[in-house]
């Protein structure tokens, strides 16, 4: 079942001279884990924001093409209404805290209150998402007392409590320390296991390689490729797009170890599997 359709998406920021996104088309099926990679300025964040309708509804600017979430055209809908179908988590954990709630528990309730969810259902959803994100024990804490990683997990909990079909994460670990990043990736992995459709823009290539079913490779606002991590990182021209393949892929390239389909492995498990086949 297709969850998200992007058709010939083009976008230019109000004060921009060049297209930030140029003729982007792809489809995402329910439960897929999609990574978006590309160097700085390639359009990763703009694409994430276009999926939730912030582009063009929040930024305005010139827009063409379509983004359909469950057959609803996001550009034609209010961002607030779309939030029940697709949620987004941004880079900075601090600015995602509303600042109007005094506890973690109330913070998760914020979006649900706005959507008019009945109180009993609200409590059920808050507790579910806090437990899933391993924040239940912090429910009485003030959100600003949490660490960066915990704050980012709170932002994810607040979004998933709204029960979106798709969760978009725009470099969620870029401002976190290694421990905070690990906590967030663990949480994302748990969500993926629960069948949530995840789209994540991320610079941590090793993580993307090990979690993603498919990867979107962007360069200067254009979609260069949309395929499996093995195919994307096996491209001979990958480094021309500012992407350094995962360390396992580079090792396999130097040893010329490929899988049955003829692509280089991207994770430790895949490398181990291929090496066992070769060396026994």
């Amino acid at each position, binding site marked *: 079942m297709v969850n998200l359709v992007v058709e010939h998406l083009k976008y230019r920021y109000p004060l921009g001279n060049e297209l930030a996104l140029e003729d982007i088309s792809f489809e995402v099926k329910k439960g897929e884990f999609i990574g978006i990679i590309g160097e700085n300025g390639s359009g990763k964040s703009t694409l994430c924001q276009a999926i939730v309708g912030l582009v063009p509804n929040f930024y305005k600017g010139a827009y063409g093409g379509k983004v359909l979430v469950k057959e609803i055209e996001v550009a034609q809908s209010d961002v*607030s209404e779309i939030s029940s179908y697709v949620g987004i988590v941004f880079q900075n954990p601090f600015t995602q805290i509303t600042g109007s709630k005094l506890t973690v528990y109330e913070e998760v309730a914020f979006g*649900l209150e706005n959507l008019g969810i009945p109180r009993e259902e609200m409590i059920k959803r808050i507790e579910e998402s806090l437990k899933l994100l391993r924040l239940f024990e912090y429910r009485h804490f003030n959100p600003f007392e949490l660490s960066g990683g915990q704050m980012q997990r709170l932002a994810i909990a607040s979004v998933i409590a709204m029960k979106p079909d798709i969760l978009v994460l725009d470099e969620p670990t870029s401002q976190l320390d290694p421990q905070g990043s690990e906590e967030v990736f663990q949480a994302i992995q748990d969500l993926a296991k629960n069948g949530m459709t995840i789209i994540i823009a991320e610079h941590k290539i090793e993580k993307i390689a090990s979690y993603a079913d498919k990867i979107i490779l962007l360069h200067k606002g254009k979609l260069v490729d949309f395929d499996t991590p093995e195919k994307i990182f096996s491209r001979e021209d990958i480094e021309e797009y500012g992407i350094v393949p995962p360390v396992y892929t580079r090792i396999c390239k130097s040893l010329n170890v490929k899988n049955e389909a003829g692509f280089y492995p991207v994770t430790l498990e895949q490398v181990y599997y291929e090496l066992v086949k070769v060396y026994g």
Partner: protein
Amino acid sequence: MRYLSLYQEGNSLLHKIDPITKLLFVIIAILVPIIINTLTMALAFFIISTLLVFVARAFKRTLPIISFSSLVIITVLFIQGLFYLKNQTPFFTLGPFVFYKEGLLYATGIAIRIFNIINAVAVLIFTTKPSDLIEALVKKGVSPKIGYVFSSVLQIIPQMMSIVDTILDAQKARGLETEGSFTKRAKAFIPLIGPAVLNSLISTKERAMALEVRGFNSKKKKTFLNEVPYNKYSNVLQVALIAILVFSIIWRIISW
């Protein structure tokens, strides 16, 4: 966690009364002595609000506000005692100054009204969490956007202050002198303002987007996580307070 609030945890009777009733009391305590402009009415409300301060166990926290206001009140007593237009009856003399009974009575009326307002407001702010008051107002129909502005400011301003401290530390680490003469300190502010303002603008934009994707502008009817516990006494008190206000207006019209 820094939070701009004067709320004092407690379990007094006034802590249990809902915020709207307390807010209504503050409004009545200010309006009624104005509508029925007699010293007796002002004194009656002053006594009630002072008693409520004691019931709320907030006297210690109210005392500094009263002490500070007393400085202003003493000035009023001096000026009115000496120069009130209707001064006729000398009350006492202090060196070359003659204080008149009419002026002193008038100033006493002002003092009682001011102390009444301070006590009434103290009862509200020391026994009510600002977030509870704002949420109660939003439930009564105040725009959620206005509610958000007030409730977020209480937490975000202290957070922004700590960001300014971080920027200041970063600038100090680069050799910026922030201590010394007034000119030196004023100069130190210039490299601080740029990053602080930019940071605030970026944060505001990001927070606006985060609110948007959490349904802040949703047209659906808002629901609330926190329920105001049903308190039959609150309803009785609210009706009684409104009745007092209506009665005082009627009284004023009749006695005009």
